[in-house]
C-alpha cells in the first residue's frame, strides 16, 4: 500500500512537470470539444491526433491522449443536453433526461450535474484503478505465450457474446482486422505476406492508424454528414457564475446514484466489448430501477444525467486497466493508445510496470490531475461550448478531413497509406450502414501481431500440439470462458425458444 502511494506521488509529480501539465490541460480542452461535437468522440480524437504527439516524449504523449479521452467523456454530455443529440455514442443515455431538462429551461443545471457526476465517476474509478492495477500486473507477470493468446481470444469472445451485434458480422470484423495486421514482412520467416497486386507500399504493412483514422475519421464523418445533413440546432443556455454555483450545491441529491453509476461503469469498462456506452446505459437503467420515483426519469430527473455521466467517465478509466496491465485494450480508444505505445517502443502488459514504472505512474497520476482540470475547464467553458456547437458542420467536416489526411500521412510518410485510409474510410462507412461492427476490427489490427506471435510461440513449444492451451490451468480457464461467452447469445436464444414452446 505504501509503495503504491509512493509511486502515485511520483506519478502526480511527473504529470505536474511544466510540459506535461501544459499538454494535459491542452488535452482536456481538446477532449472536451471533441466530445461535445456531434460525430466526434474520444476514438476519433485520439486516432486523428496521435500522429501529432510524435513531437513530445512518450510519457507526455500518453498524458495528452489520456486527457483527450477523459475530456471527451465530459464533453459528450454537452451536446446531449444542448442539442439533444449525443456528442459521442457514450453520451446516448445522457440525452434521455438531459434533453427534457434543457427544454424545461434547466440546461445549466443539467450541464453542471453532468460535469460534477463525471468528476465523481472519474475520481472513484481512478482510485479503483490505482488499487487494482499493481496486483493485477504482478499476477500477469506469470503469463506465458499460451495465456497471452487465450486472453486475446477471450477479449474477442466478449465482442461475440456481449456486444449485441450480428454475430457472423462481428466474427468477420475481428478476422479481417487480424488479417490486415499480417500484411507486410513476416517477423519470423522474413517473407513478405499478402502483398496485394505487388504494390510496394504493402511491404511495410498496414499501420493500425491508417485503419483507425480511415474508419473513425473519414468513415465517421461521412456517417455524420449523412445523419445531420450538415446542419444541427443548438438549445439556448443561460449560464452565469451564480447559477453554476447554485447547481453545484445540489450535488447531494444525486450523490448516491453517481457512486452507483461509477462502480457499474468501471467494471463494465474493463470488458473489451462493453465499455462506456453499455456501461452508461446500464447505470441509467439501474438508477431508474432503484429510484423511489422511477416515473420522473425521462422527464428531466437530474439523476438520469448523473448516472450515465459518472458511468462513462468511470468506464474510460476502467478500460485502461486491462490495456496497461495485460496488454488487452478495454475499448477501441485504448486499442489506439496501445498501438501508440507500441510505436513509442513500449509494449503494454505486466512488464511495463517493472520496466517503465515512470511511464505507468506518470499516466496514472495524470488521470487524477486531468479529472480535476477537466471539471474546472468544463464549468468555465460552458458558454463557449454552446457557441462552438452552433458552428455549421460544413465548416467542421472539411477541417477534420484535412486533419485525417495529414494524420494518415505522418506515421509512415507515404501517400500509399493515405489512399488506403480513404479506401478504409469509405468501406467502413458502407459496412457500418449494413450493421457490420467496426470496433472489433480496430482492436484486432492492433492485437493481431501480438496474437500471432504468441500463438506461434505456443505451438512451437508444444511441437504443434493444440492441446497445450488446455494443459495450462490459466489458459484453459480463459479458453473455457471464451467459449462460454461466444455461446452465450445462442444459449439465450435457445431459452427463449423453449419458453415460447411452453406457452
Amino acid at each position: 500500500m505504501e509503495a503504491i502511494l509512493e509511486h502515485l506521488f511520483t506519478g502526480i509529480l511527473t504529470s505536474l512537470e511544466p510540459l506535461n501539465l501544459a499538454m494535459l490541460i491542452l488535452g482536456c480542452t481538446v477532449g472536451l470539444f471533441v466530445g461535445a461535437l456531434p460525430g466526434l468522440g474520444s476514438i476519433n480524437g485520439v486516432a486523428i491526433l496521435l500522429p501529432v504527439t510524435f513531437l513530445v516524449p512518450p510519457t507526455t504523449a500518453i498524458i495528452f491522449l489520456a486527457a483527450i479521452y477523459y475530456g471527451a467523456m465530459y464533453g459528450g454530455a454537452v451536446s446531449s443536453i444542448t442539442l439533444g443529440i449525443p456528442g459521442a455514442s457514450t453520451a446516448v443515455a445522457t440525452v434521455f433526461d438531459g434533453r427534457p431538462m434543457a427544454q424545461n429551461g434547466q440546461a445549466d443545471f443539467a450541464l453542471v450535474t453532468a460535469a460534477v457526476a463525471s468528476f465523481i465517476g472519474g475520481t472513484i474509478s481512478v482510485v479503483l484503478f490505482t488499487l487494482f492495477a499493481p496486483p493485477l500486473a504482478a499476477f500477469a507477470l506469470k503469463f506465458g505465450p499460451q495465456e497471452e493468446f487465450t486472453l486475446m481470444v477471450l477479449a474477442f469472445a466478449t465482442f461475440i457474446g456481449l456486444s449485441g451485434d450480428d454475430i457472423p458480422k462481428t466474427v468477420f470484423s475481428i478476422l479481417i482486422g487480424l488479417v490486415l495486421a499480417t500484411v507486410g514482412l513476416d517477423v519470423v520467416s522474413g517473407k513478405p505476406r499478402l502483398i496485394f497486386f505487388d504494390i510496394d507500399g504493402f511491404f511495410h504493412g498496414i499501420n493500425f492508424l491508417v485503419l483507425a483514422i480511415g474508419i473513425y475519421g473519414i468513415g465517421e464523418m461521412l456517417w455524420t454528414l449523412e445523419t445531420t445533413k450538415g446542419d444541427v440546432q443548438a438549445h439556448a443556455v443561460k449560464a452565469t457564475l451564480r447559477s453554476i454555483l447554485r447547481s453545484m450545491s445540489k450535488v447531494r441529491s444525486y450523490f448516491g446514484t453517481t457512486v452507483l453509476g461509477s462502480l457499474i461503469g468501471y467494471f463494465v469498462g474493463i470488458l473489451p466489448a462493453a465499455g462506456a456506452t453499455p456501461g452508461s446505459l446500464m447505470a441509467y437503467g439501474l438508477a431508474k430501477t432503484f429510484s423511489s420515483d422511477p416515473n420522473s426519469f425521462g422527464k428531466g430527473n437530474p439523476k438520469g444525467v448523473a448516472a450515465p455521466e459518472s458511468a462513462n467517465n468511470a468506464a474510460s478509466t476502467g478500460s485502461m486497466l486491462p490495456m496497461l496491465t495485460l496488454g488487452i485494450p478495454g475499448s477501441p480508444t485504448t486499442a489506439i493508445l496501445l498501438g501508440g505505445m507500441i510505436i513509442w517502443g513500449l509494449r503494454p502488459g505486466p512488464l511495463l510496470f517493472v520496466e517503465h514504472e515512470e511511464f505507468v505512474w506518470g499516466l496514472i497520476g495524470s488521470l487524477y490531475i486531468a479529472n480535476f482540470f477537466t471539471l474546472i475547464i468544463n464549468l468555465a467553458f460552458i458558454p463557449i461550448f454552446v457557441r462552438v456547437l452552433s458552428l455549421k458542420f460544413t465548416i467542421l467536416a472539411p477541417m477534420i478531413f484535412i486533419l485525417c489526411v495529414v494524420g494518415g500521412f505522418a506515421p509512415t510518410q507515404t501517400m500509399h497509406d493515405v489512399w488506403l485510409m480513404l479506401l478504409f474510410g469509405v468501406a467502413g462507412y458502407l459496412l457500418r450502414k449494413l450493421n457490420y461492427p467496426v470496433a472489433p476490427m480496430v482492436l484486432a489490427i492492433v492485437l493481431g501481431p501480438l496474437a500471432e506471435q504468441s500463438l506461434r510461440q505456443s505451438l512451437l513449444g508444444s511441437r504443434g500440439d493444440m492441446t497445450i492451451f488446455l494443459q495450462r490451468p490459466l489458459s484453459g480457464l480463459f479458453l473455457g470462458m471464451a467459449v462460454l461467452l461466444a455461446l452465450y447469445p445462442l444459449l439465450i436464444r435457445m431459452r427463449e425458444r423453449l419458453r415460447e414452446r411452453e406457452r
Partner: protein
Amino acid sequence: MTVRTAELLVAVLLAILSIGIMFKSTDGLTIGWVPDAGPGSGAWPFWLSAGMLASCLVTLARWFLRQTPESRSEEPFMTAETVQIVGITIAALFLLLLGTHFIGIYFSIALFLIFYLRFLGGHSWILTLFLALAAPIGLFFFFEGALIIPLPKAYSEPLFYPLYDLIY
C-alpha cells in the same frame, strides 16, 4: 438499390475477398507445419481468411432465410440526398489526394477548402479564403517546422525553397 440487395452484394464481395486472401496466403508461403520452425508463415492468414469466408457464408445463409434485419428491409440503401452529400465529399477527398501527387498537399488543401466551404457549404468568401490560407500555413509550420515531417509537395516544391530557409 434496396438495403436487402446491398447486403447480398456486400456479403458476396466479402466472400470473394476472403477467397482471394486465402489464395494470396499460399503465394510462396507454407500454410502447413514447417519442421523445427513452427507453423508456416502463411498458416495464420490462411485460416483467418477461411474463417472470414465461413462468416460470410453464414451471413449469406441468414440473408436467404431473411434472418437479419437488413435482409428484410426494402428501403433504399442510400437516399438521393445521402448520395449527393456523401458522394460529393468522397469525390472531393479523392481529388484532394490526387492533387497531392501534382500540385502538392498544401495547394490541394487550399482548393479542397475553397470548394467545400464556398460551393458546398455556402459560406462567405471571407471565411472561405481565411481558412483556405490559414490551414495550409498552420500545417506547414507544424509538420515541417515542429515535427520535421515533410508533407508531399510534388511539382510545387520549388515554391517552398524560401520557406525552408525560414524554418531550417
